Every structure is written in structure tokens, then in C-alpha cells.
């Protein structure tokens, strides 16, 4: 398997290229989840680009659907479809809609985009595994801002109540949302205690860009409980001028910024 750090760097470059080419999209929250996605698709999940509908596969739900460039870049990197197709992102007649459409994109397990809904669908998939006596797992990536949606807590309550222990939810805890800091807009903290109170197994990851720390966290799932891996991340990670800037939540880099971002990423290579 490819060096994951190189994979992550390639994904970052693809994210920038997609959004720049589309002149729209969400770079900040795409870049913050790169290591989580690289690890899942290249090391952890039972998934096969040649057999994307295999009923025994592990599932992934991008609950924070605006991070579609991250999902598409990961799937293309993994070989679900040609990387050239990334240049159709957000364009008319493209498979690669602004937010993921499971009907048209191989490897997309759930259509998402409206925040707060993905986690519930992941629970349904995980509960189906139990009924069918299958041992697949379901992974979801949830935004920290997304935790402001009430439906998230309905889902968290249900997953705890039904002991859905084949579900792992990563919280991309980058601390920012469109309007600013999550704690200023509508603070969801303490996040860990909230999940714990709903009978979840909670694992904190201090650096959500550290692959080893993420690997260790994934070993700490628990019997009888869903697991929340709360990953402290940096919004815009890997591109100096995007890091920790809420302004890069949903805006595209211009030509100069794109060149600068790609230059930085090329220089970083597999060192990040």
C-alpha cells in the first residue's frame, strides 16, 4: 500500500485543484479531514474500488457533505474513478455534485449535504449489519459545527440506546465554521462529555493529522458502545494561508493562490 503521507498530500492537492477549477467549494473543512480519510480508505476500511457495492464492505458516510472535495479526492486516489473526473466537480452534467450524490458516484455510500443527517443514516447501515449478521463497520465524518444540528443529538441518543458498536464517528474538531469560531457562534463544547452522556465510547485525538495517533484511536473501540473519535484538527491544514482561517470555509482560491497552495504542498510532499 502507498505511503499514507504521500496519499494524504496527493489528496490535498486534488482538493485544491477541484475547488480552484470549479471556482467554488469548501477547502477548509476538506483539508482538515485528509488524514482521517487517507487512513480509512487506504488502511482501515474493507473496501474495493472494483466492487464498490459489495454488501460486506465497510461503509463511510460523509455527514459533513460540503467536504465533498475530500471524499472525491480520496475515492479517486483509491481508484474508484479516474482522477481527471475531479475536474468536473461542481460543473453542469457532472457526477461530482457540490455535495455527494450516491446514485452517481462509485464509492459514495450515502448522499449528504444537509448537515446533521448523515449520522442517522450511518446508524441505519450499522443496525442492518446486525440484522444480517454481517461484521462490516460503518464510519462517519461529522463536523464540529455540524454538532449544532439537533438531529445529530437524536442520532447520538439512538446509537447509544441501541448499542450500535459497529459505528465509529469521527468528529472533525477544527474549531471553525463559516461565521467564525464554533465557540462564538454556538458552542457545542464539551463535546466528549456529551457523547459520553449518551453512552458512547469516546476517544480523544490531540492531533487529527497524526496518522499514528489516529491508528491508536481506532484500536480503542468498545464492545456494546458506538465510538466517537474526536479529532482536533486544523482547518485548511497544509496550505499556510488557509490554516485556521474561517474565511476559507467555503471560498475558492484564485489562480495565484492556487499556484501558491500547490507549490507549498509539493514542497511538503510526504513530510506533513
Amino acid at each position, binding site marked *: 500500500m502507498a505511503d499514507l503521507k504521500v496519499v494524504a498530500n496527493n489528496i490535498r492537492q486534488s482538493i485544491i485543484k477541484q475547488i480552484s477549477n470549479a471556482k467554488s467549494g469548501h477547502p477548509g473543512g476538506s483539508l482538515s479531514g485528509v488524514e482521517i480519510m487517507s487512513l480509512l480508505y487506504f488502511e482501515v476500511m474493507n473496501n474495493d474500488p472494483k466492487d464498490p457495492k459489495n454488501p460486506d464492505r465497510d461503509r463511510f458516510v460523509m455527514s459533513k457533505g460540503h467536504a465533498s472535495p475530500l471524499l472525491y479526492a480520496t475515492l479517486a486516489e483509491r481508484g474508484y474513478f479516474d482522477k481527471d473526473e475531479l475536474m468536473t466537480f461542481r460543473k453542469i452534467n457532472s457526477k461530482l455534485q457540490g455535495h455527494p450524490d450516491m*446514485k452517481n458516484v462509485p464509492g459514495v455510500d450515502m448522499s449528504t449535504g444537509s448537515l446533521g*443527517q448523515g449520522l*442517522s443514516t450511518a446508524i441505519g447501515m450499522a*443496525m*442492518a449489519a446486525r440484522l444480517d449478521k454481517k461484521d462490516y463497520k460503518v464510519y462517519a465524518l461529522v463536523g464540529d459545527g455540524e454538532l449544532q444540528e439537533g*438531529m445529530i443529538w437524536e442520532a447520538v441518543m439512538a446509537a447509544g440506546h441501541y448499542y450500535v458498536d459497529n459505528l465509529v464517528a469521527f468528529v472533525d474538531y477544527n474549531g471553525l465554521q463559516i461565521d467564525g469560531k464554533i465557540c462564538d457562534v454556538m458552542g457545542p463544547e464539551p463535546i466528549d462529555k456529551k457523547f459520553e452522556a449518551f453512552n458512547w465510547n469516546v476517544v480523544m485525538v490531540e492531533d487529527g493529522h497524526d496518522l499514528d495517533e489516529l491508528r491508536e484511536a481506532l484500536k480503542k473501540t468498545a464492545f456494546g458502545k458506538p465510538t466517537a473519535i474526536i479529532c482536533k484538527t486544523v482547518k485548511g491544514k497544509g496550505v499556510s494561508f488557509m490554516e485556521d482561517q474561517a474565511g476559507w470555509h467555503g471560498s475558492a482560491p484564485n489562480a495565484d493562490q492556487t499556484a501558491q497552495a500547490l507549490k507549498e504542498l509539493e514542497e511538503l510532499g510526504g513530510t506533513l
Partner: protein
Amino acid sequence: MADMIATRAAYGNTLAELGKENENIVVLDADLSKSTNTATFGKEFPKRHFNCGIAEQNMMGIAAGFATTGKIPFASTFAMFGAGRAFEVIRNSIAYPKLNVKIALTHSGLTVGEDGATHQSVEDLSLMRSIPNMVVLCPADGVETKKMVEAAAAYNGPVYLRLGRPNLPILFDESYEFEIGKAAQLKEGSDVTIIATGIMTSTAIEAQKTLEAEGISARILNMGTIKPLDEEAVVKAAKETKAIVTAEEHSIIGGLGSAVAEVLVKKEYAPLEMVGINDTFGESGTPDELLEKYGLTAKDIVAAAKKAIARK
């Protein structure tokens, strides 16, 4: 009358029957399983019945997730909280990916009765009809409910099934063949066509008798499928009877009346009178009192028929 059953009860019974034949059927409820009658299924198949608590949005989301794995989820609560509160989850997580979820909502319309306006869903047909990929069904009695539940389970895609609280007379016999998208002509007639759905179909039959006694020949179409609408039957009625009345226990905005009006304007004009709830909220009362006060009786259909005929 011995042959009375609520559509919600027929739903629960049919679901429990289907559960025996089809292991893929799972049922979700939101703390109303005794009222929606999904408890009947839950008693037989407790492992396939999931109470989601008073959290309708999450229930719809879980149903969507189940459907991605090949399960056939039936998600039930009151129409108000399903079609209303969880509308956007239904739209984005079920209908947009065209997932095979059956949204079977009970206690629709005014006949919820004493609970009053907060629980009387008179907008659900309009809401569900506006969503692409959604099939919208509304049964007139227990038999049609059974046939519709079976048809919904056999159909691959999202279906909204509109069910009610009150006991209704049985109109159809077991030989009735329901097909999604096809109206059933219950009476032939030449002066006017009454197109009715849900509880209003039996009211329409009552109205037809009154009209007949007065020398007016009314055709009755039971429109079990609100979407896709049987446009052919509407066009035929417009051509042959040249006056149309619609009758539904729903707002006149966006439901059966609107759907029929769209066809009449596009394909074959005929004067149309709509019997329905006139852009207003309901209130507490017995079902019969409410139907009387809000203009949903046989008398109202008769008056509407005469008005439509006069406009020819």
C-alpha cells in the same frame, strides 16, 4: 357497521403479514406504535421493529440508512410530524438518493379530531407531492390500504402512504386490484365526475346517491394515487362529463385538487370545484363536527357538483 376498519389498523395488520413473507421489511416508529399500529408488526417481529423515540428526523435518517443495505423500511408516525417536521430529511436523505423507504404516516387530516390543529396535518399531500421521486398514495378503506401496502413493498423507491385515524366503511372487496398510478372508477356517470381520495371517497358515494335522486348523473373516480396522477382518467372524465369536483381531507392548496387542476389546465379543460380545507387550520372537535364545519360532507360535494355543472 361491522365492516369498519381504520386505514391505520389495516396498515398494521398488512405489515405484520408481509413481515412473514419478506425478511427485509423493517419497521420504525417514533413512540406512537400503538397509534400507528406498527406495534402489531413489533409483536410478531420484535427484532425488526425499532422504536426511535420522539425523534422523527432521526427515524427518517435511520430508515434511509437501512434502505442502502437492501432493507425495506416502513417508517411511521403521525403525518404532521413525519411529512411536516421531518420533511427535509425525507427530501434529502430518502427521495434525492431514491432510497426504498416507505413513509407510512397516520392521523392525517381533520379527523384526528380532539387533538386539534397542531396534530391535524392538512398539508402533507402537498409537501410529499412536491418532492421528486416520491410516490404518494392515499387509501379510501381497509382493503385499498392492504393493497397499497403490498404495492408499496413491491415497488422499489420512496413511497408516501397517507393513513388516517377513524374507522371507515369497507368500499372494496378483496378482488380489487390496485395499481400505482391508476384511478378506480366506482360509478359511471355523464354529468359530472367526482374525483375523491381517502375518507372522502365514501362521502362521494353518498353524494352520488343524492345527485342521482335529483336526476344528476355523477361519475366517481377513487384516486388512490395522488402521484403519479392518473392523467388519462382525468382527461377522459373532463372530455366525457365536462365538469369535475375533487374531494379530499386536505388543504385545497397542493393536494388532489391542485394535481387535477394541473392536468385540466394542461390537457383538457373542464370547470373544477374543489372540496377540501380552505386554507385554514383546524381545531378540536369530533371528526364529524369538524367535517361538517370545514365543508367536507356529502352535502358539500353535492353543492360543488351543481356549481361545476352550472359553469359548463
